């Protein structure tokens, strides 16, 4: 992937996409599905962080919460309210899954901001599976709950009868590209941001441009902190919207 994208301009060498190469952690052999890679390591660290925040943070079960416990309670309340607002009261039953997805993506995004780390959410395979899991479970849920009535999701009764078949076709296509846009949004934002950081860092090779490059890296890093949180939020809120469509398919 990297060798095609590198450009040699005026003695500068940029390798912005080298950071996304999946390497085995121990030795270098071919990568099988069971090989422990740098991606595996940072995915596991994200899971450990979630466990650390929720299990260790709320271990005391204090009435007056400790610092970590109040953070955990704050996040819990925030996502709970979001699920309730967007998916409705009966969507609250699926809150644990939404909460898990949010925390996992949130920590994976933030751990990726540590210098020299690997960003697992920049891999389309990772976000693709997250989006596919949401897509398959939400579609199954809708079909189980409403049977063929779930198909009324595509029949927009608010529109005039003449345009309804056309709208139905568009809605049907939009439904099937949901996992694509859902996953590529997250992976694309993280990929583009981290590649941009490396490109700006590459300009520091030119001594006169170095101070400006470092300021640029600083500014983009601040932006990336924002993007890491917003993309986790957007992924979660879209999960809630899809859940709402499955629970209440009638427009």
């Amino acid at each position, binding site marked *: *992937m990297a060798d*095609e*994208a590198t450009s040699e301009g005026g003695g500068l060498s940029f390798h912005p996409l080298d950071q996304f190469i999946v390497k085995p952690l121990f030795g270098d052999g071919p990568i099988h599905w069971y090989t422990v890679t740098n991606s595996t390591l940072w995915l596991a660290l994200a899971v450990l962080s979630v466990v650390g925040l929720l299990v260790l943070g709320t271990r005391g079960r204090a009435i007056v919460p400790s610092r970590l416990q109040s953070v955990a309670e704050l996040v819990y309340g925030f996502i709970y309210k*979001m699920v309730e*607002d*967007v998916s409705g009261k009966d969507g609250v039953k699926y809150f644990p899954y939404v909460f898990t997805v949010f925390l996992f993506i949130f920590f994976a995004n933030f751990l990726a901001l540590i210098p020299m780390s690997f960003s697992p959410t920049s891999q389309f395979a990772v976000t693709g599976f997250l989006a596919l899991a949401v897509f398959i479970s939400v579609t199954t849920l809708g079909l189980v709950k409403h049977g063929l009535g779930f198909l009324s999701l595509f029949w927009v009764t608010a529109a005039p009868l003449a345009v309804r078949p056309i709208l139905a076709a568009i809605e049907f296509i939009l439904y099937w*590209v949901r996992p*694509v*846009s859902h996953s*590529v*949004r997250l992976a*694309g934002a993280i990929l583009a941001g981290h590649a941009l950081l490396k490109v700006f860092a590459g300009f520091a090779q030119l001594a006169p441009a170095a101070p400006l490059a470092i300021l640029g890296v600083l500014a983009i890093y601040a932006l990336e902190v924002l993007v890491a949180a*917003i993309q986790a*939020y*957007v992924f979660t*809120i*879209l999960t809630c*919207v899809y859940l709402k469509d499955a629970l209440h398919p009638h427009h």
Partner: protein
Amino acid sequence: MEGDISQMGQFIGAGLAAIGSGAAAIGVGHVAGNFLAGALRNPSAAGGQTATLFIGIAFAEALGIFAFLVALLLMFAV
């Protein structure tokens, strides 16, 4: 020579697909700008609509993502 021309086509195509990202940026700016215009008229109602704002932004962004996807496919998959 033939490989050079096809590679040139890939790069030109990827660059053209990047225009779509700019178009998505216009869409996202439109959503956010209109939200701000509405929020400044009725600030008390703005807080409850942030979820709607992000959903609108996400849908506007989705089509830009397809452009980005086309660019990625041209660069690395074709």
